């Protein structure tokens, strides 16, 4: 009897082993591919001079932008944020602050500070079909004619953005989180692909990299690359490496083949007509930015259009990363729930050849590697341990294999540090480089297992159907946790070693 059970267990174990090996090989392959694509493009552009922007900035030849700033209970920050936006290094823009039914004094403070009076004729006119919460009033600043405040009933961030889309005037809009710190040239950097689009080529959305501001000095709402410093806290440095990898490797590679599934909510430029066509932001989801990007891709495919969603590697905005484990955990589980929701809402695209590369490659990649990766990783550990008890494991081989995979993960991370140096060299001190490098090496040994665990927790929370609204997003995660640096996180799911 026990012999039969043992045989069955061994058989199951063998199947698991094979499946996991295939999984690891495939995902390692994808990472290598993305790294190669990113390396090609960054190598070509390495050390490109910053004066490429100054030449354009001196002229008025930039497309006008509508900047939508959703605000909920932001009485403390809003004036400062708007002030720094008003002084941006850009020629033509309007700012649309959307007050999402704040319970504090956000509106009265804005009215007073910027001499705003009510505008009656400004009805929503972009024709977004989606129902939004009613607008109470629209105000325009007398002092700054390009500053508009919309006061509306509470309906969540996505709803606020939709109202902003309805009210704004220009063909391109920027979605911005209230507490994002911008690079001084953020707008020109992100708009460049739109300016350079060939006749007939359409750019639906562009986004840039998000950096980590902890440890740097922010000067009146801006952070220029000269004042970027690396934080002293290990947890933050680790996140810096993580962001670099997510942005510089994952996104450049994906964007090159028009497979980018996420334009960050912290800072993205969208073409209004397209967003209106797909019905604006989806309310009631956590990852409304990713959800919108996926829907735009869907629409591009359905229309058989050549339109593109482009990613600009330049760091355009900076965010404060969580410095404590508790907040970091909350952020990561939330991101994972958002990822789950976006994928579930568009499950019909997965492995659907009608959606081209997005359907056949990026969606499955996000499903298997990003969403289920942590779970598979835990399974891997389980397989190894059970194999040990079933006496099917050669301990030495397992350990060396584990070492290979850990080193592979570390190599990916160190490469991203190198990419940063090629293209931006924001971290100028040699000691910073060393610290980035060695933290990148150490990642697989402590940071990664923690992330794996949290992301698994997030996955289960999502399956249980945990939901969240505005409140948590802005007030609890005060450290800027509502930024999404990228869903491509791990360099490589750590391998489940096994022996045959």
């Amino acid at each position, binding site marked *: 009897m026990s012999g039969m059970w043992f045989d069955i267990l061994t058989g199951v174990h063998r199947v698991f082993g094979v499946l996991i090996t295939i999984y690891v090989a495939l995902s390692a392959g994808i990472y290598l591919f993305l790294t190669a694509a990113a390396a090609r493009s960054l190598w070509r552009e390495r050390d490109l001079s910053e004066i490429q922007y100054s*030449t354009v900035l001196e002229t008025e030849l930039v497309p006008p932008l509508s900047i939508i700033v959703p605000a909920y209970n932001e009485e403390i920050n809003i004036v400062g944020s708007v002030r720094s936006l008003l002084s941006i290094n850009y020629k033509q823009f309007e700012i649309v602050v959307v007050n999402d039914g704040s319970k504090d004094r956000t509106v009265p403070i804005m009215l007073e500070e910027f001499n705003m009076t009510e505008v009656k004729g400004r009805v929503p006119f972009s024709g977004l079909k989606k129902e939004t919460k009613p607008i109470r009033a629209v105000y325009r600043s007398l002092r700054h004619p390009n500053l508009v405040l919309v006061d509306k009933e509470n309906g969540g961030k996505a709803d606020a953005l939709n109202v902003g889309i309805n009210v704004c005037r220009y063909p391109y809009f920027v979605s911005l989180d209230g507490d994002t710190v911008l690079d001084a040239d953020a707008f020109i950097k992100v708009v460049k692909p739109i300016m350079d689009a*060939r006749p007939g080529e359409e750019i639906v959305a562009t986004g840039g990299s998000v950096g980590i501001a902890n440890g740097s000095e922010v000067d009146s709402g801006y952070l220029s690359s000269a004042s970027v410093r690396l934080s002293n806290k290990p947890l933050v440095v680790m996140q810096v490496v993580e962001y670099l990898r997510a942005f510089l490797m994952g996104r450049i590679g994906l964007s090159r083949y028009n497979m980018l599934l996420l334009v960050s909510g912290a800072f993205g430029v969208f073409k209004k007509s397209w967003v209106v066509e797909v019905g604006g932001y989806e309310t009631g989801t956590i990852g409304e930015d990713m959800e919108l990007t996926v829907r735009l891709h869907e629409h591009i495919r359905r229309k058989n259009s050549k339109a593109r969603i482009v990613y600009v590697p330049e760091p355009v905005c900076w965010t404060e990363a969580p410095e404590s484990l508790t907040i970091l955990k909350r952020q990561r589980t939330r991101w994972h729930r958002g990822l789950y929701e976006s994928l579930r809402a568009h499950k019909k695209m997965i492995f659907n050849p009608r959606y081209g590369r997005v359907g056949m490659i990026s969606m499955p990649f996000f499903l298997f590697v990003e969403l289920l990766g942590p779970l598979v990783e835990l399974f891997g550990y389980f397989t190894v341990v059970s194999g040990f008890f079933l006496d099917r494991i050669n301990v030495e081989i397992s350990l060396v294999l584990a070492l290979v995979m850990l080193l592979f993960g570390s*190599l990916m991370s*160190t490469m991203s540090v*190198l990419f940063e140096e090629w293209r931006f060299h924001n971290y100028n001190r040699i000691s910073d480089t060393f610290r980035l490098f060695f933290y990148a090496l150490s990642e697989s040994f402590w940071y990664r297992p923690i992330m794996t665990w949290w992301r698994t927790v997030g996955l289960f929370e999502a399956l249980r159907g945990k939901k969240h609204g505005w409140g948590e997003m802005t007030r609890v995660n005060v450290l800027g946790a509502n930024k999404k640096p990228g869903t491509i996180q791990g360099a490589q799911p750590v391998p489940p070693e096994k022996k045959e």
Partner: protein
Amino acid sequence: MSDAGVLRVLWTAVAILVVLIGLTLFYLVERKVLRTRHRLQVAEATRRFADPDSPLVEYLGSGERSRRLEMSGEGLRREALEEALLSRLALSASQTERERIYAFAADYFAEEYEYLLGRRRWGDRMNVLLHIEKFRMTGMKDRLIERLGLLENGPNSDDERFLLVRTLASLQAQETSDYFDIAAERFSDLQLMQVLVALQGERLEELVRRFDSLPIRVRRCLLDTLRLGNVRTVEVLELLERSMRSEDRETRIRALKALANFGYMTPEAADVLEERFSQGEAVIWPERMMQARLAGAVRQERFAPHLENLMADPAYEVRREAAASLSNYRNGLERIAKVAEEHPDRFARDMAVETLERRAYERNVV
């Protein structure tokens, strides 16, 4: 494979990975060290040039090149000199000083730039083009044309093609217009305008003269460029008024916008505008908006009733523009106040109230 075989493969993999990681670190540190050295050099160059006693400051003041000047860059790398000169350019306002910096840069960098232009690395070539443009190195013109001839025809070289053409334009090269056909086909509107905006004086006059022979996209962009550059000649006025009657809607809109900026139109053109106004909503709203703007800029009594009509336009932007234009007229504010009280259309009344509030505020502040 035997366990021993597997182990051997794995250990080899470990060795390879360790070596790769080591190499990456080495390369990283090397680059960092070089960069630090470079930053020091830039600081050194900037310091040397800022010193009131420096040969460069002397040269910028007098225009006379001393032997000391020729030697002042010695021991510094090109990039450091470039950066220091660029920051000097950004600061110094006077035309003579700029000219002197250009002349100095042309002497110092020409040889190296010629070499860099032919480099395989894309980033190098792009950087050198940006610098040629900044330092107005007219002497490089032939090399740029040569490079344009060597470019592959594919879209991969479009970034470089654009920068080459823009640089040519900024050097006021007559040959720039040879590339308009390919530019109209490949460049975006904003890129075309960057090229056109750089052309000035004689080159620009020539473009205005042969306007009709230009590709349509270049024509449209040229109208915008004339507006942005505030070019005010009889020829330009004549061109704008002609384009206002163009078959192409985009051309008409841009011509109206440019005319509004010009602030004057001949009586014949005013007749055309009035005729257009009477077509009402058969004209699309961006064009109606520009018509309203033009009517506000030229302030002719006969347009006032049309502007009052436009204050009830279905498009918010048109209503706003019409109100702003009308308020420029004599007794404009009274007329708007009348609209606020008597106009049958609610949107027109709302817009009138909004405009009055804004004007009242502006009176108080200014």
